[in-house]
């Protein structure tokens, strides 16, 4: 399990904070320890959910993975749901940051869509636990998370709407008010279903198909395929 905030640091079992923070008196400021514990609990929840599913996860599972006491858990969160929401928000913030950065780095919109999708697939493939947590388990985790999940997906719509700029009247006439929503929904559905089927490692291979699917309404099939299959 890698730290979602700092993916370059690897540790087979625990987030890196644990290795850096010896048990007992360490003279660190209180807020630092608290922040650290919170991060460990979030990482612990992701591991526990990967192992047991959201419904099967207990607070005991989370504290065991995080190597903190039950009391510490309740200092940070009132419930499993609350801890899950914190984990979900952490994952989505990171995912959005990566997608946004990849998108912004490209000058041309079709290449930007390609780069954004590539960044998303890369993150999800490299973090299979977090992929499952954010794309599959989130739907089981109660109405608050489902609402955030819906909002997170809808927040991708503007990336696609940007593709309308400068298109001919003919192309624009072919787009409806729900085109972007349907594109985003189709992409997310395809990704989620691979993760659900435990085929997360296949995600990156989907890139050309997803790019072509996303660009076709704006560029037509032939041009979309060209961008999708460019190296």
């Amino acid at each position, binding site marked *: 399990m890698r730290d979602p905030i700092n993916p370059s640091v690897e540790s087979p079992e625990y987030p890196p904070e644990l290795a850096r923070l010896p048990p007992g008196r360490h003279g660190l400021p209180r807020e630092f320890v608290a922040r650290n514990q919170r991060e460990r609990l979030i990482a612990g929840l992701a591991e526990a959910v990967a192992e047991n599913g959201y419904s099967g996860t207990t607070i005991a599972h989370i504290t065991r993975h995080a190597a903190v006491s039950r009391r510490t858990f309740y200092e940070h969160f009132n419930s499993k749901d609350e801890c899950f929401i914190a984990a979900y928000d952490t994952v989505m913030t990171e995912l959005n940051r990566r997608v946004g950065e990849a998108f912004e780095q490209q000058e041309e919109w079709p290449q930007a869509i390609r780069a954004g999708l590539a960044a998303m697939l890369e993150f999800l493939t490299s973090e299979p636990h977090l992929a499952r947590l954010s794309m599959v388990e989130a739907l089981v985790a109660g109405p608050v998370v489902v609402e955030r999940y819906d909002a997170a997906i809808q927040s991708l719509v503007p990336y696609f709407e940007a593709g309308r700029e400068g298109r001919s009247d003919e192309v624009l006439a072919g787009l409806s008010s729900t085109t972007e*929503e349907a594109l985003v929904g189709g992409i997310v*559905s395809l990704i989620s279903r691979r993760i659900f089927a435990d085929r997360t490692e296949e995600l990156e291979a989907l890139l050309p198909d997803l790019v072509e699917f996303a660009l*076709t309404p704006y560029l037509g099939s032939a041009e979309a395929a060209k961008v999708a299959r460019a190296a």
Partner: protein
Amino acid sequence: MEASERGYRAVTVADIVRRAGIARSTFYENFSSREDCFLEAQKYAMSAALEQVIAAAGEIEDWPQRVEAGLAAFLAYIAREPALARTCMVEALAAGPAAMQSYEESLQSFVSLFRLGRDVSPYGGELPEALEEALIGGVFWILYQRLSLSEAEQIEELLPELVEFTLTPYLGAEAARRLATTKAGPNRGTEMYG
């Protein structure tokens, strides 16, 4: 259909029997658990919806018309049975792996209907492998959003844009728009596409 009002997680067996006006023992004669009851409801609704789709579209030779008729029948079913539709398309996602599996299967039956479009498409052989899954995923997402917002009564109005969305990759935007906006007529032959 208690689940459609309060969400699957909040519904208890007591709620279901009260609503259905049956004894708790009767519930357990028919279902082993709340999950079991939910899965049965989901299975029932999905096969009913698919039956309608097949009845409306199964005999139509012309593929775009077939897609249009199939989607129209599907939307009509949702508009008629919003509570059952919510159970399948919204609550199913929150009801655990077995319900998700069943959702997945219903999605696959649409994949085969759409895949026939490759035979009439000028891009047939070059279309991306995952196209159908992405298209159905997109259609289901739109429907899921509308059902989440309890907008089932307006769902049939989505037909033209969903038809256009699904036909575009096969036939190109212009042909898809023409087919989505014209009402099915006798002169629409396969030679028009592409």
